[in-house]
C-alpha cells in the first residue's frame, strides 16, 4: 500500500434515508490531497460536493445520514471516530469557509466575538488574548482598521469584507485542512478575484491543504492543483488542473468548460449548454447517470442506460468515468469541442 496522503478519502458513501427513498448524495468517492496542495471539487448543485465537505468535517454525524467508507486525515480515520473526537478536530485541524457569509455568520454577535469564540474553543486563553488574536487575523485577511472593525456586526460589513472575516475565522486556529465551499459565489467579480488571491496567499503562508468546492471551473482554474468533477454523487473526472482544462475527456466537463463565465463574454451566453437538469439523487438514471443529458449517449452502443461506466485511468492519474473509448473522447475534444471553445 502506498504511503498515505495527508487527506485520504476512500469509497466514501453518504446516504440519507427519506420518506421518498434513499438519497445517495455521495456514492463511492475516492480522492487524496497533500499538505500545501489544492483540490477543486466541481459540480452543479446537488452533485454531492457540499455533502462531501460536510462529511469530511463530520457534520453529518449524529444525524440520519448513513456514512461508509474511510476518511483518513493525517493518519486518523474519521468515519469510525467518535463524534466528540471529530468535534475536537473541527475548527482546529480542519476548518471551513462557507458560501454566504451573511447567513453563515451569526447576526447577533460581532465579528470579533465569533472569531474569539472559534479561537477559544481550541485554545485555553483569556478573552483579551483571543481578542488580540482576532484583531491580528482580521488584519491578515486585509480588513482595514481591524482593531475597530473587530467590534462590528456582520451586517455592518460589505460582502467582500464579510468573506474576509469568515476566512479569518476559519484560519484562526491555523487549520491544516481548509475547505472552502463556494467561497466567492455571493461576491461580485472583482471582489471574487481579491478573495481568491487572498486564499492562495494564505494557503502558502499556512501550508494547509485546501479544498475548494464550486460549480464554477473559473474559480478553481488558478488555484487548484487537482480538480475533481462530480456528477450525481460520483466522481466522473479527476485529474490535474492541466488535465481538466487542456485535456478534458468527459462530455460533462466539456459542458462545464463551455459555461465558464468570462469577463469578455456575456454571462448568459453559453457555448456548450448542458441541456436538461441535474439528476434526482433518489432515482439516479440507470447506467451512466449523465446519459439523459449526454449528446454522445448513442455512441456507447446501448450501454449508456444499462451499465454504470467505471472510473478508468487514461494516463498519469487522469481518471474518467465514460463509456466512450479514450480515443473517441480525445477525438471529440480535439475536433469538435476545443475549436468551439477557442472561437473567441
Amino acid at each position, binding site marked *: 500500500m502506498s504511503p498515505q496522503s495527508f487527506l485520504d478519502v476512500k469509497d466514501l458513501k453518504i446516504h440519507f434515508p427519506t420518506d421518498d427513498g434513499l438519497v445517495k448524495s455521495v456514492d463511492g468517492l475516492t480522492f487524496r490531497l497533500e499538505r500545501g496542495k489544492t483540490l477543486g471539487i466541481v459540480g452543479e448543485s446537488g452533485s454531492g460536493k457540499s455533502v462531501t465537505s*460536510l462529511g469530511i468535517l463530520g*457534520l453529518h454525524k449524529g444525524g440520519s445520514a448513513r456514512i461508509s467508507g474511510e476518511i483518513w486525515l493525517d493518519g486518523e480515520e474519521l468515519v469510525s471516530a467518535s463524534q466528540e473526537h471529530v468535534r475536537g478536530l*473541527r475548527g482546529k485541524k480542519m*476548518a*471551513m469557509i462557507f458560501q454566504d457569509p451573511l447567513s453563515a*455568520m*451569526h447576526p*447577533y454577535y460581532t465579528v470579533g466575538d465569533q472569531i474569539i469564540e472559534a479561537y477559544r*474553543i481550541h485554545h485555553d486563553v483569556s478573552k483579551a488574548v483571543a481578542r488580540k488574536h482576532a484583531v491580528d487575523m482580521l488584519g491578515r485577511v486585509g480588513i482595514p482598521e481591524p482593531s475597530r472593525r473587530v467590534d462590528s456586526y456582520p451586517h455592518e460589513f460589505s460582502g467582500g469584507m464579510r468573506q474576509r472575516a469568515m476566512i479569518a*475565522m476559519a484560519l484562526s486556529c491555523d487549520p491544516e485542512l481548509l475547505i472552502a465551499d463556494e467561497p466567492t459565489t455571493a461576491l461580485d467579480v472583482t471582489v471574487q478575484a481579491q478573495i481568491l488571491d487572498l486564499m492562495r496567499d494564505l494557503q502558502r503562508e499556512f501550508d494547509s491543504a485546501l479544498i475548494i468546492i464550486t460549480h464554477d471551473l473559473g474559480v478553481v482554474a488558478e488555484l487548484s492543483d487537482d480538480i475533481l468533477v462530480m456528477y450525481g454523487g460520483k466522481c466522473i473526472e479527476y485529474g490535474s488542473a492541466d488535465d481538466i482544462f487542456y485535456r478534458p475527456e468527459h462530455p460533462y466537463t466539456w459542458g462545464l468548460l463551455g459555461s465558464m463565465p468570462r469577463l469578455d463574454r456575456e454571462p448568459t451566453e453559453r457555448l456548450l449548454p448542458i441541456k436538461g437538469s441535474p439528476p434526482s439523487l433518489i432515482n439516479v438514471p440507470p447506467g451512466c447517470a449523465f446519459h439523459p443529458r449526454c449528446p454522445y449517449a448513442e455512441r456507447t452502443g446501448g450501454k449508456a442506460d444499462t451499465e454504470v461506466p467505471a472510473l478508468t485511468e487514461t494516463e498519469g492519474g487522469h481518471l474518467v468515468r465514460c463509456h466512450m473509448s479514450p480515443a473517441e473522447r480525445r477525438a471529440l475534444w480535439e475536433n469538435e469541442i476545443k475549436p468551439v471553445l477557442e472561437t473567441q
Partner: protein
Amino acid sequence: MFTYIIRRLIGAVLMLAIVSMATFAIFFLVPRLAGATPESMASRYVGRTATEETAKLAAERLGFNDPLIVQYGRYVKGIVAGADYDYGAGVEQCPAPCLGYSFITRQPVFPDLMDRLPITLSLAIGAAVIWVLLGVGIGVLSALRRGTLFDRAAMVIALAGVSLPIFFTALLSLQFFSYGNPFAWAAQGGYYVTFNDSPVLWAYGLLLPWITLAFLFAAGYARLTRAGMLETMNEDYIRTARAKGLVERKVITKHGLRAALTPIITIFGLDFGLLIGGAVLTESAYSLNGLGKYAIDAITNQDLPKVMGVTLLAALFVILANLIVDLLYAVVDPRVRLS
C-alpha cells in the same frame, strides 16, 4: 435613541388619553345615549330602599348632573393636579395622580390600585419565571427531539394547556391539591402573604396560581420555541458554529436559542404587560385580591372610577411593555436600529 424614547413616551400619553376617553365614553356616554338619567345612573350607588330624593343627592354628589365634558375634564384634572374630596365630616386632598373615589366604597382608587399591584406583580412574575423556563425548555427539547415520543407528548400537553380555560384548571388543581384532600400540599384560595413578611409563605400561597397560570402560557411558549428552534437550527450560522468545533450544547444555547428567543421576547413583553394589568381569571379563581379581581369586582358593581382606574393602569402597563420590548429588541438584535 433618546429622542426615540421621548417620542414613544409622548405617544404613550396620547394613547392613555384615548383609552381614558374611550372608557369614559363607554361607561358615561353610552348609558346617557341609551336614555339613562343622572338619577337613574346614581340609583345604582344608593341603598335598596333609597328614595328618589336620595338618588338625586347621590347624582349631585357623584357629579352626574354636569355635562359629560365637564365630568371628564374633572377626571383628567384629578389625575394631573389632584382633587379635593368631601367626605362629609371634612375635605380631603386627593393628591395627583388622583384617579377619583370609588362610588361604592368611597375609597380613593389610586392607593387601592397600588395596594393591589404587588399581588398581581407577584403572581405575574412568579408565573412568568415558571412558564418561560418550562415553556422554553420544553420547546427546545421538543425541537431537538423532533418526532420522538417526548416531542409528541409535549405538544399534546401544550395543546391542552393552550385550550383549557383557567377557571377549569384552577378549580381542578384546587380540588386535587388543596381543600384538605389527602394529597393536598398547596395553600387554599385567597392565601397571600407579602414577600416582605415571609418569602417562603409568599411562594407557598402563590405556587398553585403560578402553576395554573404558567401552564396556560408555558404551553404556548413551548410551541413557539419549538417552531423557532426548528427554524434557527437549520440556519447557516448554526452549521458554522458546529464547523468551528463548538460543543453541541453551546451551539443550541448560544447560537440557536439566542436567535429563536427574539420573537418570544416580543410576545413575552406583551403577555407580561397584559398580565400586570390583571390576571382576571386566575385571581378570581384563587380569590387573590389583585388588579384583575379588582377590575372584575369593579365591573360587577358598576363602580366606574375603579373601572377607569384599573383600565388606565392596565393600558399603561401594556404601553410600557411595548416600549420595553422595542428597546430590548434593539439590544437583542443588533440589526434593529431605533429611529
